[in-house]
């Protein structure tokens, strides 16, 4: 049975600059999964645990968080904070018997493009392998 996951991407202003500049058509040409939606934040450190959980409640099968390289965040600690929150969500998903790998933090260079597309593709493929989210009627592997 073919399954197209609902992928949510939360990324900071800086890591998504080129992606946003290209627009949807440009992204599609580069192989960006059409089933992924981007939510851009001023800083990945603004992302709250509750916002990520709402994405899963809202039907996400996988969540991709993108922020600056660990020690080169435009806002100093923002991407490290985001990474900690991603870990908190993973732990909670595991406690619920759901694969923590449905969420991943990527630290990428600012404004650069191929890596950004690659990160989302990677999460998309991984999520396809896991199947629909157990919160949407799927079964955890």
């Amino acid at each position: 049975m073919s399954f197209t996951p609902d992928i949510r991407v939360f990324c900071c202003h800086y890591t998504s600059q080129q992606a946003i500049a290209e627009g949807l058509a440009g992204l599609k040409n580069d192989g960006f999964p059409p089933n992924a939606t981007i939510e851009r934040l001023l800083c990945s450190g603004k992302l709250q645990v509750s916002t990520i959980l709402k994405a899963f409640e809202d039907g996400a099968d996988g969540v991709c968080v993108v922020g600056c390289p660990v020690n080169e965040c435009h806002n100093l600690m923002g991407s490290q904070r985001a990474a900690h929150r991603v870990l908190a969500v993973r732990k909670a998903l595991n406690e619920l018997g759901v694969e923590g790998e449905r969420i991943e933090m990527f630290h990428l260079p600012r404004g650069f493009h191929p890596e950004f597309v690659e990160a989302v593709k990677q999460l998309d493929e991984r999520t396809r392998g896991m199947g629909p989210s157990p919160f949407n009627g799927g079964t955890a592997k």
Partner: protein
Amino acid sequence: MIIAERKPVDEIVEMVSGVKRVLVLGCRGCVSICSAGGEREVEILASLLRLGASKQGRTLETIEATLVRQCDREYIEGIDQWAGQYDAIVSMACGVGVNFIANLRPLDVVYPGVNTSFFGGSADQGIWTEQCAGCGNCVLHLTGGLCPVARCAKSLMNGPCGGSVGGRCEIHKEVPCIWQAIHDRLDRTGRKEDMSRIAPIRDWSAAGHGGPRKQVRDDLTV
């Protein structure tokens, strides 16, 4: 403050598995400060409980609310505002809050959302350490302000024990031997003679060994 941490989510999901509507109730006191049961954590737990229920193929309604405190009668009475809208309460306050709800609301079903751990302080961001065990008979005036009851693994009154090595406790190498620290501190502050004072035999009944403790202040009672 009282330090607590959220229980594993699956445990709480299990508690509310027979319930359709839950009041997730936080507390603005200690558990807010140690990020275990304040407004933000209530929002997160409510979301996790709804997700847990969807995984079981059912829906769970949640009300998210936070009281000023859950250890005072007048705030607990505030729960009346949600009367008839919930089947169970998950309290994210410390165990005192859960007990107060159970004491004062005979018909409410209440579950604990956190594990209440100890009395402590914030040693660093995101790190809390135990400092006092509420023994009811404080000896800090003799020990340079460092607590041997809570901070010595054996609660010794005349440490250090033979296992103290290089200022570290033999039970947990990452923890300082508090008795070494007590001696060093008394020495540094010119109060070494405090260590030779013979302290009276402790009355441990004040530490809870004689049943639940109660404090009555005649100047405050009405």
